[in-house]
């Protein structure tokens, strides 16, 4: 039993890497623009389907899809940004409905292009077992976990050291003050969408490489990312990472100990529990009460 639990913890942590990438993108955009992009999961999905196409059409490893995915997903992300920036009034609520609509468009575009079938990688290199002592996983899981950690390190460096990254943080914490410092909020908003797109591209390729994808999955990913940001308390980058690991582990434990049908339920329950018990999240300080 305890081996099963250890194994579940390990799988959960590996899964948490991709979750963190997705949730960080959502949180970045929310930070600069105060907009929750409900089409964010669809961006990830787009990258996943690029990986599928590259593998099935060109016979290449899904890894080769990353450059294509980066271009496509970032362009889509910037398009989302432009649509959102066209909203004139009541942006908080209208942006939700708008991005919900974009999500519907993307989901159905995926459905049209790639059909409703469930897809997964056929690369045996990706699926080969990798065993560390008592821990078992696919090679792709470990590979992309390492990639995720590297990306998060890069993101951390970018946010804390680079000029643009610091501008993003400044706009997130105090828009007016950032303006006074000569930062153009619009360009930081675009940058945050692009960075979210980059993270989503890697996450999408990762998810295809070790899991299964289908058109309706984008929506599920958005909800998971949102759950993680709620767990974290919006505005807390390390919180997002911990939240992502927490969700990954909770899901893996549920699948191991109960049933895979309840996997989604555990995320939702965690989400509601945190909302009720700790309305500011596990790490957040900013109020979200109205």
């Amino acid at each position, binding site marked *: 039993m305890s081996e099963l639990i250890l194994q579940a913890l390990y799988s959960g942590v590996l899964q948490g890497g991709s979750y963190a990438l997705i949730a960080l993108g959502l949180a970045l955009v929310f930070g600069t623009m105060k907009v929750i992009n409900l089409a964010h999961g669809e961006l990830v999905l787009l990258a996943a389907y690029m990986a599928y196409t590259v593998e099935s059409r060109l016979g290449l490893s899904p890894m080769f899809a990353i450059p294509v995915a980066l271009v496509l997903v970032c362009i889509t992300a910037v398009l989302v940004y432009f649509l959102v920036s066209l909203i004139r009034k009541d942006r908080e609520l209208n942006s939700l*409905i708008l991005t919900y609509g974009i999500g519907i468009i993307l989901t159905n575009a995926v459905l049209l292009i790639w059909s409703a079938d469930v897809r997964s990688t056929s690369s045996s290199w990706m699926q080969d077992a990798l065993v560390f002592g008592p821990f078992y996983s696919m090679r792709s899981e470990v590979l992309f976990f390492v990639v995720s950690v590297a990306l998060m390190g890069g993101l951390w460096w970018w946010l804390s050291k680079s000029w643009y990254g610091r501008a993003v943080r400044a706009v997130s914490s105090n828009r007016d003050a950032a303006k006074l410092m000569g930062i153009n909020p619009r360009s930081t908003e675009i940058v945050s969408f692009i960075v979210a797109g980059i993270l989503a591209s890697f996450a999408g390729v990762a998810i295809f490489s070790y899991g299964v994808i289908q058109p309706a999955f984008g929506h599920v990913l958005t909800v998971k990312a949102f759950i993680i940001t709620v767990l974290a308390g919006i505005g807390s980058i390390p919180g997002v990472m911990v939240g992502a690991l927490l969700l990954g582990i909770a899901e893996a434990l549920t699948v191991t100990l109960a049933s895979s049908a309840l996997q989604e339920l555990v995320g939702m329950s965690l989400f509601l529990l945190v909302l009720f018990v700790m309305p500011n999240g596990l790490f957040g300080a900013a109020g979200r009460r109205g």
Partner: protein
Amino acid sequence: MKMSKTGLAVIFAAYVLVPLLLGSNSYVMSLIVAAMIIGGIALAWALLGNLGGMVSFGHSAFFGVGAYVSAILTMKAGVPVLAAMLLGGVGAVVASLAMLPVLRLRGPYFALAILAYAHIFKILATEWTSVTGGSAGLASVPRFPTLMGFDLSSKTGSYLIVLSLLLVFIAAYRVIRSSHYGIALRAMHDSEDATRVVGVNSTLLKALMLFVSAFMTGVIGAFNVHYINFLEPDYAFSGLWVTLPIVAAIFGGYRTILGPLVGAVTVYLVDQLIFKNLIPSGHQLILGALLVAMIIFSPGGLMPLLRKGTRRKHAAA
């Protein structure tokens, strides 16, 4: 309540002319009933959005809970169908009680939390096999009864039921909107703090709107299950029960009472008759595009846009 002549004429036409002229064409009647089902949810959704100031992506929760409660009450407890339909609405209100703590949260949190509830209810309906029949669902849910020799389970009978429900909803919406509660809710739109300091309990009022909206949606869900006679979790809690009403309400104008209904009939019929033929499997793509276009060009809906258009024409003349 004052009723305009046009209003009375429309009601007369709806009750008498539609059944007489179209009643024999069961394809057309089923399209109309389906459009009205969407219209009912759209109305309930818009009530919450307009008066409560809340966007919900989880109305399928109320629709599904209403359907299950009513189906189970008729099948397992022998409750008469029409009574059970109302109890389905009550069931949805009870389900909405669980959402009360979320009401204190700001817009996006509410919108997403309610979506989380919809997922939870769907999983519960799938897993609680002994009561709900699990993912196989419930077959042969009782039909509407025959009253005074008139078969309510026929297309025309069902049409008259859903029409009556919608009229009651419209009347209730109008009463609420013009009541002191309604005025206070309108006051909260852009000046919530100023409204609260004069003594308005905003959380309570929003909760009441959530209850009303949940009840309406639950009743519609219950109506639908007795109309189609079967039920399964994927269908009852389908995202379609949210998407279509949102598109309809935004398209018609969610700040008005009739907008969502007009929007539902237009959007549903155009979707079924045109979009679905154009792209059979991904026709919702066009609905999404419509939603995006509406939010960007006319978030108030088509009605204000048309009004603006005619005003401009007058000004130019």
